[in-house]
């Protein structure tokens, strides 16, 4: 039942209609350039953006909605949540503003309302309210070139494979997001390398939550173990001191 978006870089003409549709549907305000924004165009008021590359390449950047998201694992209060439909959504009522999700995201997606006295985390939520009703996200609905499409993740992967095999030489033989860090719900087909979308080009296929889980599993053993070690140490030292005292007494008696 996991939904996904497939974006075909070769079809995108860079008309930015997805960007304005996103703003309209999510009620986002005009974006005033601020000193805390990143050059990629995403911001608290821009949940998707188009990155220009040479030779008429336009790459749409948005939340990747990882299958096993680092941000969901990281959030101490569970304000971020991966739904069954595939969207990673945000509950602003729980959030305490620690920004750990922004730190852990390998794609650098979550953005912050830096200018508000009451700030929240902002990012693409895959138009969760719309896909819940069986509609598709605003960006895929408006795309005039069908460059970015919405559907079941498995079907989109099949479709992507089909496009690669039907057009030999047109695409790089790779579906971005199929396996990297455990797979994402936003997939890309491209004729140029899209490694720049993440902080590191080859991130491997291990989901990021697995990096912390050994440490988290060790928490309880470490807690009990440290208690045990300390109690044992204390017992040994006391015992030694008692024995030492007795020895002193025994050594003392013959002298007296």
């Amino acid at each position, binding site marked *: 039942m996991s939904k996904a978006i497939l974006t075909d870089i070769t079809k995108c003409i860079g008309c*930015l209609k997805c960007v*304005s549709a996103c*703003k309209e549907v999510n009620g986002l305000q005009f*974006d*005033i*350039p*601020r*000193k*805390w*924004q*990143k050059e990629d*165009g995403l*911001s608290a008021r821009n949940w998707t953006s188009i990155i*220009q*590359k040479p030779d008429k390449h336009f790459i749409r950047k948005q939340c990747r909605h990882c299958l096993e998201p*680092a941000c969901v*694992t*990281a*959030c*101490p*209060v*569970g304000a971020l949540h991966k739904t069954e439909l595939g969207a990673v959504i945000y509950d602003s009522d*729980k*959030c*305490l*503003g*620690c*920004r*750990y999700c*922004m*730190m*852990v995201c*390998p794609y*650098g997606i979550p*953005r*912050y*309302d*830096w*200018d508000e*006295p009451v*700030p*929240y985390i902002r990012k693409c939520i895959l138009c969760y309210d719309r896909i819940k009703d069986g509609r598709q996200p605003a960006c895929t609905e408006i795309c005039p070139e069908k460059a970015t499409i919405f559907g079941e993740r498995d079907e989109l992967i099949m479709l992507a494979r089909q496009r690669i095999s039907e057009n030999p030489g047109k695409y790089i033989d790779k579906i971005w997001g199929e396996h990297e860090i455990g797979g994402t719900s936003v997939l890309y087909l491209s004729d140029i390398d899209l490694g*720049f979308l993440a*902080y590191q080009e080859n*991130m491997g296929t291990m989901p990021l*939550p697995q*990096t*912390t889980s*050994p*440490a*988290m599993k060790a*928490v309880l053993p*470490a*807690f009990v173990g*440290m*208690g045990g070690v*300390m109690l044992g140490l*204390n017992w040994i*030292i*006391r015992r030694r001191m008692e024995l030492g005292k007795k020895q002193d007494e025994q050594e003392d008696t013959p002298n007296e």
Partner: protein
Amino acid sequence: MNRVQNIKLVLWLITGFAAAVGLLRFIFGLGVTTNLNDMTPWGFWISFDVMAGVALAAGGFVMTAIFYIMKREEFHPLVKPAVLTAFLGYLAVIFGLLFDLGLPWNIWHMIIYWNPHSPLFEVGWCVMLYTAVLLLEFSPVPLEKFSRYAKIRNFLMKFRFPFVLLGIMLSTLHQSSLGSLFLIMPFKLHPLWYSRIIPIQFFISAIALGIMMVALESSVTHWMYRRKPEVNLVAKLGKAAVWVLTLYFVVKMTDIIVSGKLGMIFNGTRESYLFIAELLISVIIPILIFVTPQLRFRPGWQMFGSFMVVFGMVFNRINVGGLTMLSVTGDSYVPSWTEISISVGVVSTAALVFLYVVEKFNIWEKPPENPEESPYAEASFDYSSRVWLGAPRIASLTKYSLAFILSFALGIAIMPQGRLLGKGVEDVTVRKARGNDTLYIDGNHDGYGVTFKHKMHIDSLGGNASCVRCHHMSMPLDKNSGCWECHRKMYSASDAFNHDWHASPNGADIRCRKCHTENKNREISTAKTCTQCHNEMASDSAALVDSKYMAMSYTDAMHMLCVSCHHDKAAENPEKVALAECSTCHETAPPEHLHDLLKWYDKQPSFNRVILPKLKEKEGAI
């Protein structure tokens, strides 16, 4: 005894200043008062206040372990100060965190909303529980002053051992879990610091840091109150720290060698120098100091050695907490003075509370002599103002409150008002509006924008023939290029050729040598001209002088192109006089002192003239 008072005075000054800055942070939000940004969401506050702060407070659990668990009775004089430092340290961490959190009033949410998979959740819970345990561990000290609470005190004293044990167990968890926070960032944290055993490294270094913090605090406070320093105890602590530091060094280097990162230490990048400096300061120099018997027993060297460990380990936390991520994220974060002053302010507030508690309660076996308390002390006379200041106690209170108020006022006064009220838009060059055909230009740098209506401009500029006036350069995405594409700067002539975009990997990604073909000096004179690459594209009407790459400033362009037409229309039609007035376009009219200048300006047709030089806009890129 003047030394204590002077130090307190400085601490009060810092606290007052930080209080003002902290107030402004809550009024105006994080964006304008800090240098935090979307690439560096965790800055100096998390690294220093939280990560280093928790580690600095490790002395509490280390000293109680040495005293209660290992039964080393000789350390008794250091236990109470260590527990007090830990307790105040954790309170300072929580207090400092309130400034960093976006929604600090939700800090308690971790109690009701659980996410047990999150390392931060675990750290949060441990810190909460351990602070409570420290309160129970420490409260017998103030309670002994009040006889009516004797029952509670006795009750707490009975459970002292379980409290200590629980404190050690909780500390083990969160001191290490602060390292686990970074396990999930393998792509951001530099490989020299990223390690699968980073929790273990954090735990061991926290023990060393805790020991040395107790030593440093003992040395400093004894120097302050002119007491006889606890040389032998500190020397013993130094010896213990040598063992722990050696263990830390061995664990760290083994991990680096096993994972094959040894070469990275010497590859000459910024991170390699940071790593070498960190190891020298935090491990190697202190070990050398405390291994040498001649130095180990000298108070000055003790203070220096323990300071090196404290500084080095704080440096380590800053490196892990974000400094070594900057090369990956490509950000150039430097903590703003507001961030630093709040951090320093939190530390000095904690220090003031520490000094208060030390003077009021029995922390040391022999309480310090305090001249402020003596009822027989003479009133002091201030020679500069020729005023009797009253008894020393009153006099020092007056001085402290004056210091607080003055520095509070100073903090409010030197905060850049323009930056606060400009909501972070200050110093931003005019840019293309993202997302829509309608342009949004923040003309006055004050958060007010101008909406640019396309059709109206086509009509007024001459119909279809006027397209080239804006659509002239065939830049990528040229369809709706706007004035700002050439007139990027507000007040000075600017570089019409966007050099950084052409060179950046996110932009055209063109190598330097492609344009600067001669290898001598990389400047305009040796570079290719636009038409050499965009030969069929640049039309005659392009508002670009090829040899200079310069375009009029934004204000110049607006005033010369739009205002002249407005004047004509106003002259034609008496009903539309208002068209020629500044307030037609500007939300606020220009200040009066500029009216004459502007009148003169409107009559002078010339290129590249700059007005309003008072604003600190830098000259154009070239």
